[in-house]
């Protein structure tokens, strides 16, 4: 760079970061400095051409697979199979509480006018859902399907696991409403029960 201004001010001028006074001064300088004029055009060209964002490279599927495999070996869910089942269920219960805290019934449903009516409906729905064979929500033993069903209904992701091999077969999931708040419920069936 042969011109001091080009070094110190040009980028700021280009980025619009100079005060009005400094900008005006720089523009006077521009009128008789070929270096700066050329540099400015270059910068302009550069900003148009430097779409660096197009260089973004997403991780290959193989990396995700490797990470999943690595992490699975250290993940507490699978580290110790049998004794951890109850630990896991306890953790899931904790998470349900998180879900309760995170997901409130729509404000539209919370207006006083509808409160009494709703309360009745809620109780009805709840009692209904407890009857055998009845499942409001999704009835599926597919973890992904159940997880997908909750998606959009909860503000946090709900881990859904099938424990069929441990005697708890995933049956589905539903949203119950307890004290005006939605509760995510995972339904498991125990064969013979």
């Amino acid at each position: 760079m042969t011109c001091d201004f080009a070094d110190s001010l040009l980028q700021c001028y280009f980025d619009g970061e100079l005060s009005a006074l400094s900008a005006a001064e720089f523009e006077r300088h521009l009128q008789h400095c070929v270096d700066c004029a050329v540099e400015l055009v270059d910068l302009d060209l550069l900003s148009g051409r430097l779409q660096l964002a197009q260089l973004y490279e997403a991780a290959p599927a193989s990396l995700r697979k490797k990470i999943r495999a690595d992490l699975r070996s250290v993940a507490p869910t699978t580290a110790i199979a049998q004794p951890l089942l109850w630990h896991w269920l306890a953790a899931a219960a904790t998470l349900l509480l998180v879900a309760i805290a995170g997901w409130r019934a729509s404000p539209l449903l919370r207006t006083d006018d509808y409160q009494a009516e709703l309360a009745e409906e809620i109780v009805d729905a709840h009692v209904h859902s407890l009857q055998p064979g009845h499942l409001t929500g999704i009835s599926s033993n597919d973890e992904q399907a159940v997880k997908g069903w909750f998606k959009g209904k909860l503000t946090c992701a709900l881990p859904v696991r099938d424990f069929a091999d441990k005697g708890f077969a995933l049956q589905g999931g539903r949203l119950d409403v307890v004290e005006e708040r939605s509760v995510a419920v995972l339904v498991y069936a125990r064969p013979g029960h």
Partner: protein
Amino acid sequence: MNDLDHEDWLRFEQLVLPHVDNAFNLARWLLRSRADAEDVAQEALLRVCRFFRGFQGGDARAWLLQIVGNTCYSWLEKNPPRGLMVEFDEELHPQPVATPESIAIADEGRERLSRALETLPPRFREVLVLRELEGCSDKEIAAITSIPVGTVMSSLSRAQRQLYSALANSPLKEAVRDV
């Protein structure tokens, strides 16, 4: 080695795993190799997992990127680059099928840009990637790279200039012919 309890694990899954792409992308540009980036990103993710217990919340992406950066630099120290080595990645640039010419022209800009970026020193690549590809602010870049904000700003403008002169020095048709 790993003391994550289940809640930590869930937090890790929710906070860190969504940033695998970001981790890989930074490593790819710092190491100039997809294969090496894959190894280093994997290592960085595991490192984060190992220390996740101590993570008090905050910007998990920034934390991950910082560890990716550090892991890359120590990798570069152990494996000094043998001159400028530009790879051509089949996966990334599938061979043109229909109209080779038009595809070559479309890829030319990207290819030149990519080569120009790879001629920059790692620090310059890092700040540019964080700014232009990750959209980080000066402050975030400073936190991730552990360099002062003022230095981040001057590095960015120097990096941009150097990138431009690298671009200006690469003849327009060269990239296409080389391919």
